């Protein structure tokens, strides 16, 4: 059952952009995390319609989240009377676009439901609901699941040597699937050595990599550029989507900070304050 603001149910349903209820809200917050073997989803519900909450407390209804992945034919229905729930799935169960549809669904027949906020167009009630009826629905949330999307953003960057570059200059190429950070052979050797040291890695992250991520974001913001089909572009766009970042809504430097999880904090901890590892 898709969320459709124009859809008319034959009974009142608490939904965004619907006047079935004069007041009241139902919202779900959903977060995905991936580790080596597991996809973890954390779901939280906020429901301000007391009458619906009471039906959940009485065991007549429950919060339901339907997690669906079209590409792998995966669908899992997670039901709970609790406002928070976590669930784990096998790392191989989902890939690509994953939709999460949150509801409050009737579990046992409700014979006499009354709520003063129900639009009088439905009549004065009391209302009857049967198993499977929907009391509340939130908009679908879309996530992208791919192992690359949960790796550091720098995983789509390759450091490559370019023979004709002088030691102090570096350039960035966006034509391949991975972004190419091009440096002179001598500099490549120096950077490769620096990557083995945590503190030096933090410096690299805040210098070359930060600038390269920022330029990549700037390129994606440019309506005259087309990077369709490039892996790096897909990863950056989808990581931004999963983090709720609108590429058009902020400057490139700010988006780079968010995508790289505020790398200056690492600089502060490991370089300025000299925390030992």
């Amino acid at each position, binding site marked *: *059952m898709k969320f459709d603001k124009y859809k008319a149910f034959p009974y009142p349903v608490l939904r965004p952009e619907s006047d079935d209820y004069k007041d009241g809200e139902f919202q779900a917050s959903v977060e995905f995390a991936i580790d080596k073997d597991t996809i973890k989803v954390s779901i939280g519900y906020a429901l301000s319609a007391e009458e619906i909450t009471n039906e959940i407390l009485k065991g007549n209804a429950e919060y339901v989240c339907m997690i669906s992945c079209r590409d792998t034919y995966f669908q899992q229905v997670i039901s709970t009377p609790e406002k928070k729930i976590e669930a784990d799935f096998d790392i191989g169960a989902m*890939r690509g676009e994953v939709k999460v549809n949150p509801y409050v669904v009737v579990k046992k027949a409700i014979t006499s439901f009354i709520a003063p906020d129900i639009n009088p167009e439905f009549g004065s009630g009391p209302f009857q609901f049967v198993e499977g*009826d929907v009391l509340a629905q939130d908009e679908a949330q879309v996530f992208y699941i791919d192992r690359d999307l949960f790796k550091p953003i720098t995983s789509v960057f390759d450091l490559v040597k370019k023979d004709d570059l002088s030691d102090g200059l570096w350039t960035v190429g966006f034509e391949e699937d991975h972004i190419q950070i091009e440096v002179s052979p001598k500099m490549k050797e120096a950077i490769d050595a620096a990557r083995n040291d945590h503190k030096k890695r933090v410096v690299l992250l805040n210098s070359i990599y930060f600038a390269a991520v920022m330029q990549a974001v700037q390129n994606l913001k440019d309506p005259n550029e087309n990077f369709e089909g490039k892996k790096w572009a897909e990863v950056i766009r989808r990581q931004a989507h999963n983090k709720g970042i609108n590429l058009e809504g902020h400057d490139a430097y700010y988006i780079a900070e968010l995508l790289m999880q505020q790398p200056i904090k690492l600089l502060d901890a490991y370089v300025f304050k000299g925390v030992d590892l």
Partner: protein
Amino acid sequence: MKARFFKAVKVQELLAAVGENLELYRAGNFDFLVNDPANYFETDFEINADKLSRIDCGKDNLKEVENCILMYEAMGKISHYLARDERLWIYLTHTLLLSYVRNRWPIPDDDEKAIKYIRNHFFCIGARGIERDNASSRLWWMASLCNRTDGLSLEEALACLLFQSDVRANIVERPTTSQNIRIFSAILKKLYESYKVDKKLFERDRFRSVMKWLNLAGGVKLLGALPEIKIMNILEEGIEKAN
């Protein structure tokens, strides 16, 4: 043997060169790709080459059910995540399954038609390329879907799903019916009952009418949250109305 995936760049090259390679697709082979490890990478999971080699079909016997089962067993414990990777299936259609693909979808004599055919069945083009068109991946995905059916063997479920292409498309291409195991199982069980008796439920209009009924019911009830017995009741009501 370990499963191999073509490198993405090789897939792009092959796709761009279908026209130039027409004779290889018609009568040659792609051994030169296998002989150069720069064209592919090998993964950790094992596939059964013997079972893959037994996938075959004749002009009058496509052996779809048997081939789906062989493919499913041959691929071992491959995850859905990996099974969604076109590079795996394109490697197979160009190597171990080359002869099967030619038999299953004989390449037309007309070059233009041949290119379209090859792109469809040797590669994974478009949104439904992996589960519908690629000669190797479609076998695995149909078996994988059917393997989730409660109460039917893989062979029984496949026999139902593959009996009539319109029925298959109606089930597989609707997320409501293909993704939810309880709904999918309920439909296949009803199809199997009909398959054993008179096959009436496979009639195009009748089945479409049942699917329409299910859609209407799913418009006001969250079917996916119902137990299978309730879904079955709704389905039976729809079948009754369609009679």
